[in-house]
């Protein structure tokens, strides 16, 4: 019974995600047509427009076919891993992305980890000391973090910790795990500052709301330890915190664009900037699709997370 409901739940969520990805892929495919100039011109880029190259592009992208067929053959290529050829470098887009994806994923993961480690404890501390000095400090810090743009924080961190104090490297990715972590710390911290602000707000507000609930008073009244009572409240605050965490991960994926440029890191963000600058439409298309997929996956994970945390989501119970 429990396993069947789990299976049905996951199937529903997967189907929903698939629909979203298909719809978005249509939009991404449309980028080709939205770019200024003719499609051939866009795909040719800076290459000379000889009859051979035009014929090659016509054949490769089936430009004579009706639009739905073109979309399907593009999608077929995408599914086979063929994301087209970069106009800027002439190498397959898939390879370029493959080279750079790990760095961006590592950066996003590291940034998320840092923000969770800092944001949730601070939010909890604020909620437990509501209205007192600790709380006000936490809230103020959260607002400052939220309103600081990542690239500005990045520059500040570079100036202070890399240039003045010399604790961290100015640029580069490093060799070996420890060195890589050392190199990625400042960029991850730059990404995390805003996320910490958001997590502090969400977790503090959620916990304060839960601590005022009847079940917390009831738990205290029947003699549960403070730790057990806090555990009750924290577990119940997890849904809003998960929501925030999902927004943070997707926000960070977007934030890497600025931070990678600031720290001169060869990740997807800097690839996207270069590709946009050079009107490298196949690369932009592939990157947009990849980001779409990543965001869809994060949302799927958050949905699954909800149902792990709250059985009412999975079993369709009414909350009233």
């Amino acid at each position: 019974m429990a396993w069947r409901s789990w299976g049905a739940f996951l199937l529903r969520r997967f189907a929903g995600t698939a629909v979203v990805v298909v719809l978005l892929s249509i939009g991404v495919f449309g980028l080709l047509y939205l770019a200024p100039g003719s499609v051939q011109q866009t795909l040719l880029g800076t290459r000379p427009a000889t009859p051979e190259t035009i014929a090659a592009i016509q054949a490769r992208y089936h430009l004579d076919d009706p639009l739905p067929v073109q979309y399907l053959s593009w999608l077929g290529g995408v599914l086979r891993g063929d994301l087209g050829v970069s106009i800027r470098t002439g190498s397959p887009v898939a390879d370029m992305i493959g080279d750079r994806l790990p760095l961006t994923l590592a950066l996003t993961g590291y940034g998320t980890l840092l923000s969770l480690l800092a944001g949730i404890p601070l939010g909890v501390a604020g909620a437990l000391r509501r209205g007192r000095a600790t709380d006000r400090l936490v809230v103020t810090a959260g607002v400052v973090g939220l309103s600081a743009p990542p690239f500005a924080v990045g520059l500040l961190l570079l100036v202070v910790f890399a240039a003045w104090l010399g604790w961290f490297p100015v640029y580069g990715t490093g060799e070996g795990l420890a060195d890589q972590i050392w190199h990625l710390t400042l960029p991850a911290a730059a990404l995390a500052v805003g996320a910490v602000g958001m997590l502090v707000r969400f977790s503090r507000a959620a916990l304060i709301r839960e601590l005022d609930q009847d079940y917390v008073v009831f738990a205290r009244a029947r003699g549960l330890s403070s730790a057990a009572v806090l555990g009750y409240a924290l577990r119940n605050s997890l849904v809003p915190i998960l929501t925030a965490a999902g927004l943070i991960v997707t926000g960070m994926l977007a934030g890497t664009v600025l931070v990678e440029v600031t720290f001169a890191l060869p990740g997807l963000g800097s690839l996207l900037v270069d590709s946009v600058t050079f009107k490298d439409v196949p690369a932009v298309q592939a990157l947009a699709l990849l980001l779409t997929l990543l965001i869809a996956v994060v949302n799927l994970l958050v949905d699954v997370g909800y149902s792990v945390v709250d059985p009412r989501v999975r079993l369709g119970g009414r909350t009233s």
Partner: protein
Amino acid sequence: MASRADGPGAGNAGGPGTGGGGAGRPEAAGLSGGIRDAGLSGDVRGAGLSGDVRNAGLSGGVRVEGLAVRQPATGRTLLSGVSFEVAPGESVAIVGESGSGKSLTVRAMLGLLPRGLEATGRVDVDGVRVDDDPRTRARQRGGVVSLLMQDPFTLLNPLRRVGRQIADGLPKGADPKVEVPRLLAEVGLPEDVAGRHPFQLSGGMRQRVGLAAALAGGPRVLVADEPTTALDATTQREVLALVRRIQRERDMAFVLITHDLRLAFSTCDRVVVMYAGRIMETGGAAAVRNEQLHPYTRALLAAEPPADRRLAVIPAVPGSVPAHDAVADRCAFAERCSLAVAECLAVGPVPKAVRPGRESACLRATELPAQPAPAPGVTLPFRGLADAVLDVRDLRRTFAGAGRPALAGVSLSIASGEVVGVVGESGSGKTTLARCVAGLERPDAGTILLDGVDCSDYGRLSRTAVRQARRTAQMIFQDPYSTLNPARTIGAALAEALRADGRPAASGDVARLLESVGLGRDMAGMRPAGLSGGERQRVAIARAVAGEPRLLICDEPVSALDVSVQAQILGLLAELRERLSMAMLFITHDLAVVRQIADRLYVLEAGRCVETGSADQVLDAPAHPYTRALLASVPDGSAGWLG
């Protein structure tokens, strides 16, 4: 009580509540138990126990002296001078309306006051002074004193299986595998409930789980804060009977907070009546039931409508419960009291022993006139047959995902000017019926004729037809706190209702409308937040009757209100019905209320109508077992009510 007046209690009596021991002060400590019992007149607790009572404050009991609760931020005092004692194994009900301070009293007693409130005064639990000792308090929770809360839908952690929640409260070293099933069995639940989440259980089952969790630590004192108010009447009786049985079996001291005086009489040995943050009267349950020594207790009891007869008029007390500080230095009830004399407004009385085991804070407690005999019932006036304003045929509605239909073919008719009551418990379909008639819910099948017009599906009606339907039928809702838009003034809300009916909406018209529901014209400029529950419900009624509808749909219009306010609102509805010759569809779970207002009744059970007839006929000679069960669950104040 009398037992408070002796011994150390009187010695350090800080609060005014303890100052009045003089009158009936017992000579020796050893006697006081007997004196206390004298007030119980015929109660089950015999004199045999009373010898121990004086050791009372010692173990397994509670003593509260001169308790006051303040809000330092605003300088307000919310209650003061509250003193009472609960002997081991004794059950005491603290009765009062909202604003009386009854919940704050026990929260302060348990050290669980909401943020921003401070308590002073002495509290002894289980023979230990705890008011200045948070550590002892923390240690006592669960094992010595435990609290069962009001709302079964919020008192359990929604994300934790109930077995684990119960296990969380077990003393160290207890084996959850043994103890949890035992506790579940004690509250009458099967073992497999332990593996479920709260949302998979009904309200009554959740409250039983709550009780099992509250009992897990093996407390010697159990405090229950309106434990059954959110439950259906039949479930309420079952749960109360269960609590009572367990309290006796475990020989726990029991404090019940309730707004229902009759329920208190049926459940507890003694009652403490509170009003505006003070104690008004205390005494044995049977003694207070027979004779109330404070006019407020009398008024409170009179305002509770009887289920066995229809009163010509429900004796309502005008006005509302004042704030504690508004009536400092005088009798809190004086302004609403028909027996008040000048002195009542000049001094702040404290509870005094009027006779053994009885205390009253009324200055005239010894000279109160004899209680009037209970008002006789009146027979329903015959109303000539008139054409139907509402005709519902075979209405069906099933909600997605529900196991059974909410309405499984209900037919009902209301004649012009007739009041028809629809009674049933939650899940009976009565609210769905009201919402279908008001066009807030679309029935799956069946017809609704409103003044002869087919209104089965509001979505298919033309705009003029919807307008006409809305002018014919208007609705008032249960919760006076969410029925008004908090951002609009009362005047704006009423003017909008007048305009919607095409009437002039000048300030004079709004003022007339306000006066028609017994509110002052100056209220037009206020917003809902500044109004009491009763005032809000009056505004909601004014809004509904602005267009003088032919049919007023009332969905539990008084069940969220205090009894004294309930009596006022019922009086207002009866008056409006006469003045506007309005028909009413009156939805309620409360048979005593429906008795006072309805001409005819329909009894709904699980989406079907099981019985119908004139109100007298259905309530005096119920034919269906379900109707009989509903009637039996109306508290009658007798000690045998819980069975």
